């Protein structure tokens, strides 16, 4: 079995709609510098750098090559991962593998997106099969619309509940200095916002943001030398899903098997997590739309099927609540796509360190789950803990 891996440095930019004051490298360098400073290390202490970026989104071919100076990759080993929306989380997983292998003592993981410089929305269209569904041009929104519609049909959930979920995220985001959208919302505001694809409204969807997030990972030997307590990435699991769902839609016998359930069941089993709501203290779930929150809470087994909307109604998912979800404000408040997966892990780690400031959850936080979700229902799940 491999080396144990800890997060010893965390850094992220303040995420914004536009960062015309910096280019890609400069923006990345902000996050990298913050992470190194947080770790009390210099770039020479970093053995390898793992980058994630969706090249076509950025408009740059080989985007990692272009940011070598800013990310500190000069004369260092490293590579770039790209798995769509999960890219950031994949990069963390890749960094984890690098340290766990024993070949590297430390790794720097960097994810970023500079949406103001890239044709992200146009690029997203290229995620569709060119012959088959590029002409439909419905984008990611359609997926969440179907999700929301189905959930409302199967449970007592109503539009008000999705609106409340969004309000809670906004309240959380206002306590997060890095968050992009720090909106002061009421459920009325959400219900009045423009319909994109019913029942999904503008406010239910994540923004596109400019931002970067960096983590320094280290093995046990190096983590022990650190001043700040390490946060251990105890385990991780990735599951993708066949493309036919994305391509046209498989109508599966119910209940359909979801990548989330498959990944979770493996991870939970290995780590003795039998009652997730009790065994996990903080959840940084990657939910790009308020409507995704309900079915996914159930897939993560935070509650029984059909009950998630009730938990949201009771507001137990708040920062002060028993099952705090996305205390950072989540993807729906901040979404620099390439960084979002890294941000989930970073935010969860800050919670376990007790350094999340105004967004620190009230309950004692010793364990966390951080996830990333991507197109065609791909999932990466991390189990973080203060203890080995």
């Amino acid at each position, binding site marked *: 079995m491999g080396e144990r891996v800890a997060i010893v440095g965390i850094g992220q930019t303040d995420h914004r709609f536009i960062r*015309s*004051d910096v280019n890609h490298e400069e923006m990345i360098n902000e996050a990298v510098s913050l992470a190194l400073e947080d770790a009390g290390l210099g770039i020479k202490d970093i053995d390898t750098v793992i980058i994630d970026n969706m090249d076509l989104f950025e*408009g740059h071919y080989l985007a990692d090559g272009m940011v070598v100076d800013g990310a500190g990759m000069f004369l260092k080993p490293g590579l770039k991962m790209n798995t769509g929306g999960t890219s950031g989380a994949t990069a963390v997983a890749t960094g984890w593998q690098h340290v766990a292998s024993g070949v590297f003592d430390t790794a720097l993981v960097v994810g970023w997106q500079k949406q103001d410089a890239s*044709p992200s*929305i*146009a690029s997203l*269209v*290229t995620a569709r099969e*060119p*012959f*088959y*569904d*590029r*002409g*439909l*041009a*419905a*984008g990611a*929104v*359609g997926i969440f*619309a*179907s999700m929301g*519609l*189905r959930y409302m*049909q199967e449970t007592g959930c109503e539009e008000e509940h999705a609106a409340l979920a969004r309000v809670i995220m906004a309240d959380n985001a206002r306590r997060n200095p890095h968050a992009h959208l720090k909106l002061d919302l009421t459920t009325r505001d959400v219900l009045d916002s*423009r*319909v*994109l*694809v*019913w029942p999904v409204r*503008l406010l239910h969807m994540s923004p596109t943001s400019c931002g970067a997030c960096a983590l320094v990972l280290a093995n046990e030997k190096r983590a022990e030398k650190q001043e700040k307590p390490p946060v251990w990435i105890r385990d991780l699991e990735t599951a993708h899903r*066949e*493309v*036919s769902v994305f*391509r*046209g*839609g*498989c*109508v*599966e016998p119910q209940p359909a098997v979801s990548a989330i359930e498959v990944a979770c069941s493996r991870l939970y089993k290995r780590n003795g997590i039998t009652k997730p709501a009790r065994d996990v203290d903080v959840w940084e779930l990657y939910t790009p739309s308020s409507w995704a929150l309900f079915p996914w809470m159930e897939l993560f087994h935070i509650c029984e099927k059909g009950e998630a909307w009730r938990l949201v109604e009771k507001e137990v998912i708040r920062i002060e609540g028993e099952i705090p979800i996305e205390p950072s404000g989540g993807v729906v408040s901040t979404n620099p796509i390439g960084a979002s997966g890294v941000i989930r892990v970073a935010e969860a780690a800050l919670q376990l360190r007790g350094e999340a400031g105004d967004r620190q959850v009230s309950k004692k936080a010793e364990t966390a789950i951080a996830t990333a979700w991507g197109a065609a229902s791909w999932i990466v799940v991390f189990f973080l803990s203060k203890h080995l």
Partner: protein
Amino acid sequence: MNGELLEIIIPLDLRYKWGAGPHLGAFLRGLKEGKIFANRCPECGRLQLPPTPVCGRCHVAMGEEWIELSHQGEVISYSFVVDPMYDAGIGDMRPVPYTIAAIVLDGGPDVAFFHKLEEEDPEKVQVGMRVEAVFRPPAEREGTMEDIIHFRTVS
């Protein structure tokens, strides 16, 4: 030196000559003939629409036996698209509103077909309603998804 920030727009124009391959190719040729083809996994028996080379679950080659599906089916999900979206096909924002739907065609219980609905009135669309493909006249078909104009409601 004044502090004005410079920003330059640089277009990226990449044109791809897509190879449909034998499976998707057969599907598109089928559309031209007014037919909708799926293929079947020899192991799990699942239908794939459009036909694909490999079954993602069994990891076996799907083969080239084309199964013709009915033009009629049932709407299992739909959405009214109101927010315009960039359309790579026309190189511009696509006019709204339009309705997209997932339709299970008769004879194809494992797969849903994505296409547009003729009906644009939200009051008149519901899950479970029966629809039928409306093809262009044969002379106008080119072997693309546009050979089907949309699905009209069957009363």
